[in-house]
């Protein structure tokens, strides 16, 4: 038996309807704070909510052409590199809070250059030190961005 999957467009349509409903609920919550039905903070959330539900409904029942090539998500090593790259950005957000700008940036750079570029460790480390210093000069020295513990730890 062949399992029939919902097309990505239909998933998008369903998400649109859910977001629309959420917006309508928020509009109802805000209604008591407004002056009239069409002038208040609830007006736009309500309007957008209704339109999202309608547009989602239209897309849900729109006929999809069979000729369209179905997009395929990457698999294997490509998918792994993509997930790891994004994952390391999230980890970087945590690391920077604990060990400060310099080391967290350098470690993330080394890891990403090694993973994405597949270079030798020594090359990855050298390039990372150069890039981390360049970004330090740009963002901290020049732009004076107050990163967590933005002083060099040495």
């Amino acid at each position: 038996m062949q399992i029939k999957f919902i097309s990505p467009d239909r998933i998008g349509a369903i998400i649109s309807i859910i977001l629309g409903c959420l917006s309508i609920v928020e509009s109802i919550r805000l209604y008591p704070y407004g002056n009239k039905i069409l002038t208040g903070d609830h007006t736009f959330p309500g309007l957008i909510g209704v339109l999202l539900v309608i547009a989602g409904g239209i897309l849900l029942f729109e006929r999809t052409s069979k000729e369209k090539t179905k997009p395929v998500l990457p698999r294997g090593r490509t998918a792994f590199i993509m997930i790891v790259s994004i994952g390391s950005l999230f980890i970087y957000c945590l690391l920077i809070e604990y060990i400060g700008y310099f080391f967290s940036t350098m470690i993330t750079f080394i890891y990403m250059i090694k993973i994405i570029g597949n270079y030798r460790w020594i090359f990855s480390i050298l390039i990372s030190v150069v890039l981390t210093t360049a970004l330090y000069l740009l963002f901290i020295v020049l732009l004076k961005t107050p990163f967590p513990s933005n002083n060099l730890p040495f």
Partner: protein
Amino acid sequence: MESIMYLLHGLTEVLTPFNLLIVVLGSLLGTLVGVLPGLGPTSAIAILLPMTTILDPAQGIMMMAGIYYGSMYGGSTTAILMNIPGEASSVPTTLDGYPMAKLGRGGAALGVAAIGSFIAGIIGLIGLVLFAPILADQALKFGPPEYFTLMLIALLILFNLTGYSFAKSMIMGLFGFLISLVGIGISSGMPRFNFGVGALTGGFEMISVIIGLFAITEVLKGLEEKRVSIKHEKIKNAYPNKADMKMSLFPILRGSLLGFILGILPGVSATITSFLSYDLEKKVSKNPEKFGKGAIEGVAGPESANNATSSGGFIPLLALGIPASPPLAILLAALMIYGLTPGPVLFEQNSQLVWTVIASMFVGNIILLILNLPLIGLWAKLTEVPFGILGPLILMVSVLGAYSVRNSMFDVIVAIIFGILGYLFHKYQWPIIPFVLCLVLGPKMESSFIQSLEISSGNLLIFFQRPISLTLLLLAGVLMIISIFLMKRTKKRIMQETGGQMEF
């Protein structure tokens, strides 16, 4: 005449050593990011915007304008030498630019593209100087209902012109609105859509969302395509010869005028005008069979049209506060960050700043022409930077840039999440342009709508009863029909040339 006096005064402001340095830096930085394969003007502005925040408003905007022009110049380098268009508007340039590069005439193609862009940029700027103050003057008569009608029309036409299904464009636009509503409500001061999460009370920072959608997404796309440094075609002669220039002169002028005149209309993007210009050149050419095999007219026309449309887009941006394309939407966001509200009042209240910025665009175009022709070889070399270094660098600059706008880690998380969403939108062909424009225009539209209804005591007919508003609506009807025709035509041409759908 008054405009010219203001412009000359603006020029004296720009021609100070520090301001000149800012324009040169902006143009160079823009070109530098623009030549990197896959990155176009929108990504360039998004990545570099946080770095301009230490400057004064006038200098910051001058730098942004330089980045915008520079990245467009840079984009043509990858289109011609590597057959990689940074954005859909560069697709027509690849059609004859790349075959020219393969024939060893890449230098001539790049030279003609630079000269064409320069002439088109100057023509566009002259139009800006002449028309923007007139439009701004007229727009002073606009009240909230007229503004709301105007923005609604511009968005509806844009939804139609994305190249994808109207329902999808509409959903993406509404999603952009929804994101713009998160935060403190404008009337009651109550937090909206925060669901008890403190970080959401401040709303989403526009720049973080844009960095995610354009810069982080671009890296993910590069990782999927396993982008490697592609060897570009060798450049033998860096300058076009006399015969090349003779052949390109009329295509440049035709492309510039076509691009500028159509570019003023809401929703007509640079992609539409560059394709129209390419087809026009092929039609008027005595040797149409040369097109696609390395005809210099096929580079001169579309490149000029592309630049003229982009310059024309500054008219509605500065005079009305309505951006015609994503890079201009980011520029609008940048103006807001600097505490400026683009629109007719900008010309009244900050006239010195506006004219200094316009004057800087003239200077920027001249600088780009002077720098780009001799530096073509260097820019071409930059296209060889391996993605293994470029990808991580873009990701880290995006993260640090997103943080530096409000010094908030929440904004970084937002940028990463929108980076993932942007990749999925690209993969499943959901257009990003309506999302970005609605995100930027959302707060302005909401306040115009509420103010209009407060004026009319809640009567929705106010949008049809006022003469200017009604005229705008009638004009919108005509523009809508033109836009449907243009959309169908450009969609067909993109399908023919790339074999797939593309957002324009």
